[in-house]
């Protein structure tokens, strides 16, 4: 697969069923539940998971990240071409910057490096109250701490009462509790909002 466009074109055709199958008969034994049942939970409840890392990015050497965990542990995280990166939206591995907060899941290699499969940068999940609404975003009260949530056109969406998320934010109300998935702006008390869950 060469360029992004070629790759997308190929995947588009595959997903819509315009390509032939090579291994049609191999399926059946790979029921998802069976696949999960084989991977036993390694760490005990309450204990850290070696295949997971959390912390602030303190250094970057090409695609190897140095991360300082909030529990004091240091992590080395290898990004690859197949690592998914979320930073307000799915993005590319070059977006992992020094100072970003990080959660990563992958496979711990024998040399101690975590080969990342999924990385989430600056992601926060907050239970907040809407203090006021402006044209650029929401003033949020997070257990007494003031946080500004920027609305990003084309990204920010709201899910009202469990219905599918829509871009229309005009049903948000001042004084209501909402859950916000967003991307923290490092070193500030501001976030960019990805999804708002509001119950009415």
């Amino acid at each position, binding site marked *: 697969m060469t360029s992004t466009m070629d790759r997308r074109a190929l995947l588009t055709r*595959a997903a819509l069923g315009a390509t032939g*199958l090579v291994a049609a008969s191999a399926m059946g034994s790979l029921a*998802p539940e069976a696949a999960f049942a084989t991977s036993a939970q390694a760490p005990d409840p309450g204990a850290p998971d070696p295949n997971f890392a959390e912390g602030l990015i303190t250094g970057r050497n090409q695609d190897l990240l140095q991360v300082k965990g909030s529990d004091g542990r240091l992590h080395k995280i290898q990004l690859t071409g197949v690592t998914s990166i*979320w930073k307000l939206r*799915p993005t590319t591995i070059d977006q992992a910057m020094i100072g970003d907060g990080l959660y990563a899941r992958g496979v711990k290699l024998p040399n101690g490096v975590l080969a990342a499969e999924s990385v989430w940068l600056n992601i926060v999940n907050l239970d907040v109250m809407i203090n006021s609404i402006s044209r650029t975003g929401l003033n949020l009260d997070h257990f007494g701490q003031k946080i500004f949530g920027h609305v990003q056109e084309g990204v920010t969406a709201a899910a009202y009462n469990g219905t599918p998320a829509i*871009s229309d934010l*005009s049903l948000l109300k001042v004084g209501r509790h909402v859950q916000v998935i967003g991307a923290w702006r490092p070193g500030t008390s501001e976030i960019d909002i990805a999804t708002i869950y509001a119950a009415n």
Partner: protein
Amino acid sequence: MFAQQVAAAQPLLIGLLLLWTSYGKLANPEEAEKTALPKLVGEKRAKPAYRAIGIIEAALALALLSPPAWTAEVLAATALGLGFTGYLIYAKVVVPEASCGCAGKSAKPVGYRSIGRALLLTATAAVALTTTQGWWSAGPATFILIAEAAAFIALSPELDRYWLLPLRRLRVRLSHPLAGTASTTVPLAATERRVILSPAYRAVTGLLRSDVRDYWDEEDWRFVSYTARYDGRSATAVFAVPHSDSESVRVAVVDETSGQTLYRPALLSMAS
């Protein structure tokens, strides 16, 4: 003469204010934990200290409100106001996350408004020191207290929900600042949710090895791709999510190197 009366009226306001704040402390003594008191007097003594302040406030309030009018009462109120101001500045500097604990339940950290309110209390008590008359002889000067009370309310974060929030709510109802955000493009969050809840996702979930890697739109569909492993091979799982509700979500697993389609649960994609 009028200045005398204004000064004389102050104990009424101070008394009512202290009654309110003492009620908050005595009714919810557990609020002490959130304040700077545990740091100042120790964990064990925080709650008794908090309650003691409430009792002092209540006693002083009753003394101020009832005759006779003693200068000592007003002097005590001034000292209390100064004490509060000093304590709040200490809290803001030493324990920034501590709540005020001034009046009633509030998790908000000490802000400049709370400090301003303590200063205003000190100032009104100081003004009252200039007279020996009781508030019951203040006459029309009592109306000045309405303006002062408004200032106290404006400086009380605990009362915001009774006036500031409804005001903001009304503003948003009259003209919602985010009214222009509606668009026809489907947010990615909605697409991801549809994928996760679909039978197609359940059919390949054991193969997925990453979160969303890429997404794009083409005609009536949105496509979302994930890293996958299939039979030991490196692969990509690509979901096709229709913009309309009439079609169901489809998925294919494509070999990373050869680009060949390895798996496509055709039957599942038809079951909606």
